[in-house]
């Protein structure tokens, strides 16, 4: 079989005379050329996003350890894959399998670290406040009643969606029985009177959260008005929903179908009328350019036989209850209305819906940038930041941070003074100073250092893993804060949604990870080809060499990715 294939496919064992290469080698280099351009384009995109970012680009925010370990692992695998190839050339099958096995194990460990790293990002919360202060940390979990009150704060770290583990409990402000949910304290609680559904985007899962919560609260959601179906004029409208009918997915779908049928009819009417007017215009204005004629053609909809087509349908909630909505499923909200991502509009009143956050970084760099753009003194703007007047712990840390920065700047100044023989003006010009990104940002290390009054003195090598909330000694110095909903301008986990840095980080590292998986599968396959080794070892060695070239390229990409994403 193999010999037959060898006869059919030329130059896969021996090189061609003109190029001096076997075909698959040329093939892989052509493929790698396309890969260079693919990753080159992404790196180019990264540079573009970073250089022209209109907000302070996150610098050195990723924990170094996972990236560093993964770099070592990929280098090791590059050595073992070339060793595996050499063992094949030497005819040592078992040694080939050993080195190839180590290569595959390296790939598996690399991906394992990637999973851990990604998971940490998906659990880390970022919040941009209304004054552009950025807080980072972890959400606290608690029992929250239907009125938005925290019944029992467990201060655990939990991140669930809306309406989790609902159960009856007692309101801590009275004896009236209330429903509580155990959830991460980051839900929007909205007292609903009226719901308006967008019939173009009816979504069963979104609707379920409303129906389930209404059932839990013993509330009824009923349609406000009769709904009729009429697909053509002249045909008697058929009532498909009566006012007072209970809300259900089936009824919404029926209303949607009636709307689609009516709209289809109306669209056909409009198209027919447009066609007729266009023909008339062409006959009357021979030789006039089409685009000029088009400007004068307008349909008079009053003359058309259209049928009513309403794209929304309303329902009322009796008695009025508070719905708990996950922020990621809410498009926008204000004090009296809320719109979900399925287009459902909720009219009522926004309840107290705080976010409970354990802070591990406070970043004023965006606030400073905005202040400078508006011609406001950045230091004054920072002093007026909401967080400093609402969190004594953050305020105390900030005071310490200012002293710390001033001390470093003074030391640099004194150093420069010596070089300029006491000329203060020159010394100020040449003195090194604390950069803005350090001056206006308190990292988790700063919070631990200031919170412990210097008792915990973290070194540069501490915390390569990043802000560790499980380290009780450190976490004790991460300030807890309850952020009112109106102070939150934007919030997200550290996902592509948070900023362009994470968008490009996930894009490039995700694509690189896929290359690792693909390469490992191909390399691993050769470990199970003993017959090929026996019958034609040169052919197998050529194939391993080609796959090895791909593997080295994957290593090559990571050699640049690591410093760019983790260290710059």
């Amino acid at each position, binding site marked *: 079989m193999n010999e037959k294939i060898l006869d059919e496919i030329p130059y896969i064992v021996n090189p061609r005379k003109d190029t001096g290469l076997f075909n698959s080698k040329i093939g892989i280099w052509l493929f790698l050329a*396309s890969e260079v351009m693919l990753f*080159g384009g992404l790196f*180019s995109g990264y*540079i573009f996003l970073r250089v022209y970012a209109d907000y302070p680009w996150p610098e050195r925010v990723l924990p170094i350890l996972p990236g560093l370990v993964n770099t070592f692992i990929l280098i090791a695998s*590059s050595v073992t894959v070339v060793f595996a190839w050499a063992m094949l050339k030497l005819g040592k099958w078992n040694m080939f399998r050993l080195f190839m096995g180590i290569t595959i194990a390296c790939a598996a460990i690399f991906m394992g670290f990637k999973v851990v790293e990604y998971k940490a990002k998906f659990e880390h919360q970022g919040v941009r406040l209304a004054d552009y202060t950025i807080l980072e940390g972890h959400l606290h979990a608690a029992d929250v009643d239907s009125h938005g009150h925290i019944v029992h704060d467990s201060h655990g770290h939990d991140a669930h969606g809306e309406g989790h583990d609902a159960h009856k409990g007692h309101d801590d402000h009275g004896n009236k029985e209330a429903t509580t949910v155990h959830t991460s304290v980051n839900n929007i609680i909205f007292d609903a009177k009226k719901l308006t559904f967008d019939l173009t985007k009816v979504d069963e899962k979104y609707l379920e959260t409303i129906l389930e919560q209404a059932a839990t609260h013993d509330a009824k959601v009923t349609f406000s008005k009769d709904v009729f179906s009429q697909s053509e004029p002249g045909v008697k409208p058929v009532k498909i929903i009566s006012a007072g009918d209970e809300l259900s997915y089936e009824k919404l779908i029926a209303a949607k179908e009636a709307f689609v049928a009516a709209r289809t009819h109306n669209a056909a009417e409009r198209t027919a009328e447009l066609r007729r007017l266009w023909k008339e215009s062409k006959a009357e204005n021979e030789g006039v350019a089409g685009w000029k004629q088009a400007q004068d053609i307008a349909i008079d909809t009053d003359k058309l036989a259209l049928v009513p087509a309403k794209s929304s349908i309303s329902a009322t909630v009796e008695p009025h209850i508070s719905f708990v909505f996950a922020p990621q499923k809410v498009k926008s909200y204000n004090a009296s209305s809320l719109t979900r991502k399925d287009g459902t509009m909720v009219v009522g009143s926004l309840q107290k819906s705080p976010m409970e956050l354990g802070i591990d970084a406070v970043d004023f760099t965006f606030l400073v940038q905005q202040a400078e753009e508006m011609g406001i003194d950045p230091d004054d703007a920072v002093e007026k930041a909401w967080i400093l007047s609402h969190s004594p712990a953050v305020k105390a840390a900030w005071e310490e941070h200012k002293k710390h920065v001033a001390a470093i700047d003074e030391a640099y100044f004194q150093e420069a003074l010596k070089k300029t023989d006491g000329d203060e003006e020159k010394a100020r010009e040449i003195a090194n100073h604390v950069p803005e990104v350090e001056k206006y940002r308190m990292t988790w290390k700063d919070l631990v250092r200031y919170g412990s009054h210097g008792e915990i003195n973290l070194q540069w090598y501490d915390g390569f893993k990043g802000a560790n909330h499980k380290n009780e000694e450190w976490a004790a110095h991460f300030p807890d804060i309850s952020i009112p909903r109106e102070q939150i301008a934007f919030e997200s986990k550290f996902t592509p949604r948070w900023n362009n840095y994470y968008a490009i980080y996930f894009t490039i590292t995700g694509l690189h990870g896929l290359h690792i998986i693909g390469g490992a599968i191909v390399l691993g396959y050769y470990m199970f080809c003993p017959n090929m080794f026996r019958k034609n070892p040169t052919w197998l060695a050529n194939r391993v060499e080609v796959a090895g070239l791909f593997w080295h390229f994957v*290593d*090559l990409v990571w*050699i640049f990715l690591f410093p760019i994403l983790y260290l710059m």
Partner: protein
Amino acid sequence: MAADSPEALKKQLKLYAAIGGCLFIGTILTVAVAVVPALDFGDRGFSQGDLVIGLLIASVKASLVMYIFMHLNHEKKLIYLIYGMSGFFAICLYFLTKLSFIDPIKYVGFFTGGE
């Protein structure tokens, strides 16, 4: 091929291991200049000096991988041609971003091409 005889291949193995060691050292150096305050280049924190030194070390490491592991130190002409062309086009990609500044999209009328 990196080596034609078994003896030469065995010698090559030592070179591969040595290159692996160099890559490890290069990685440690990259991290050291980024996180150890005493080794910080240029201004405090991340600066142009750190950018240059970081990319320089990465380029040296990448060159070692290409020349030794990928055998570009003794390849055929065609491979250099393919590799050179991909490098050329990849560099061109970096200048594409500049086009966004010389090609502003402006609305100038639907059919008329401007009032």
